[in-house]
């Protein structure tokens, strides 16, 4: 996993609630056996017509918007546990998703892939959408070390929560699996104790 650096970027607005992982990446595109290339089919059915021509009114097809931050309505990432959703967002180029509420499994998957979920209040989310509406190229700063999200134009900022351990992993580009492998003796001790208790 790559280290998460402080982000300074414009943002793509998606003011839709309950964006499920079937929208982020439909099941028919889950046939690959590697983690690469899913960005091409990110939001596939919102982004393209059935004949693969882009739908001009979808935000990813609007040249006015770009950046590495996606801003979306509440309950982002609900539905399937497919990690392909996080891979698709990352592969497309997003490094952070901002919403007022995240589904649990998506949040975990994002954190395991260097994609930062930033949960803000409903009111602050509204302010972010307003800032982008006023200026599609409005920039934002996400400082993970300080756990702070700032609307650059107004200087308005908010804190966000992140598990201390996951923060450490993101800042240092470390995987959970490295950690778990490092405590294998503890896992084996646990297994032996359980076995002894069962006899």
């Amino acid at each position, binding site marked *: 996993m790559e280290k998460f650096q402080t982000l300074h970027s414009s943002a793509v607005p998606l*003011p*839709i*609630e*309950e964006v*499920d992982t*079937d*929208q982020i990446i*439909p*099941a*028919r595109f*889950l*046939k*690959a*056996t*590697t*983690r690469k290339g899913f960005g091409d089919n990110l939001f596939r*059915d919102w982004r393209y017509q*059935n004949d693969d021509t882009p739908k001009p009114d979808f935000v990813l097809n609007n040249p006015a918007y770009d950046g590495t931050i996606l801003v979306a*309505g*509440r*309950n982002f990432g*609900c*539905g*399937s*546990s*497919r*990690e*392909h959703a*996080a891979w698709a967002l990352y592969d497309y180029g997003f490094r952070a998703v901002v919403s007022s*509420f995240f*589904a*649990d*499994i998506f949040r*975990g*998957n994002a954190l*395991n*892939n260097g994609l930062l979920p930033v949960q803000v209040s409903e009111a602050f989310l509204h302010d972010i959408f307003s800032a982008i509406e006023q200026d599609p190229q409005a920039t934002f700063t996400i400082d993970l070390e300080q756990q702070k999200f700032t609307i650059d134009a107004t200087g308005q900022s908010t804190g966000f929560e992140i*598990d*201390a*351990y*996951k923060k450490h992993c993101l800042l240092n580009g470390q*995987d*959970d*699996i490295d*950690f*778990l*492998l490092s*405590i*294998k003796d*503890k*896992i084996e001790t*646990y*297994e032996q104790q*359980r076995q002894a208790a069962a006899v």
Partner: protein
Amino acid sequence: MGKTLFDKIWDNHLVSQVGEDTQVLYIDRHFIHEVTSPQAFAGLEKRGIPVFRPQQTVATADHNVPTKDQHLPIREELSRFQVDKLTENCEKFGVELYGLGHPYQGIVHVIGPELGITQPGMTIVCGDSHTSTHGAFGCIAFGIGTSQVEQTLATQCVLQRKPKRMRINVDGELQPGVTAKDIILYIISQLTASGGTGHFVEYAGSAIRALSMEGRMTICNMSIEMGARGGMIAPDDTTFEYIKGREFAPKGADFDTAVERWSLLYTDEDATFDQEYHFLAEDIEPMITYGTNPGMGIGISQAVPEVPAGNVTFENSLKYMGLQGGQAMKGQKINHVFIGSCTNSRIEDLRAVAAFVKGRKKADHVNVMVVPGSKQVEAQAKAEGLHDILTAAGFDFREPGCSACLGMNEDKVPAGEYCVSTSNRNFEGRQGPGARTILASPLMAAATAIYGELVDVRELLNQN
């Protein structure tokens, strides 16, 4: 202070604490399938490490398999490659595989319980959000992403934040024609698609106790549809009776010892929950969904809610469904019926459908697909004559897999057409691009197939 069922099992599987919030949880059983495992196996190969506890890991091919001619090579190239990759990985890493052609093959959440692999008190994970199904046996079972599949393969553990506890009580008696599926669709309609987020749910109350194991699995299966990490039901005699004699269940004296141990798995009377809800079984009608998430559900006698002012998401959802606020759903013409998925493809579901359908024919304009949850369900349906009843009614009885629940294989619903489906998700495009899904119980699906439109099954039952 007393402990909840959830805490008893969780604490018993705690290996280590990491910082303030994160814990290392030991996993008893790991189910894998072809779609969310290849990248995890590739990770192990890259690190040059084996599967830590292959004997606690079971694989099947379900998400991406055809439901016709399973004895022939898979025609679609990418699907074939993915299924072959699973076979190759299982051989290489020594994992038991119930692949295509095996008498135990089927949807992962159907085969675990029916083989007796799922047992009370266990922790179970799978790279699939409907892993919550196994909670029906009094397990902590939840879906994980592929990174965590890799963690589990490598160390038999996952890193987790302990969820909050929620209890949902359903008391009283269900009306005739109202089933487990209606209970869970009702609960989700009341709590919304995010009402359970951050929580692990225990279902309790007399209406839950009265359910069969199949019904309990249907309830726990859809816990994720309200955002909950998982759902569970304390094991009781119904549970023990179901497990007894199954392939991998403890046998003889071992079974008796296991039942003694399992009988301790309940929430203590003085235990507390972070959130608690009470519902009455009598209030529940046969349920259907009208929108594009499982929280958008109503009783069959009710009208589609009006669009709340300024709610773009709700407006888009009705537009996608081709429905209007205030309109009745009863009488809505339907072209497709799908009976299957990890929610409702078990033998009891097929029995309920066959009992309603017996001696009748489907409406001419409806395509009906019945996809059994496993090879064992398929075989039993044939042995009990259910297959003949369904085929005689004009239903297309197919081979096991996830099928049109998620439309990964060729079983899809055409754009713009309505499908009454016994599955778990009515998301946009879930059953195929543009497909319009209406979630319902197997009984409601059977009635829709016969009448060709949405009907209130309660009005038809006494005609049988």
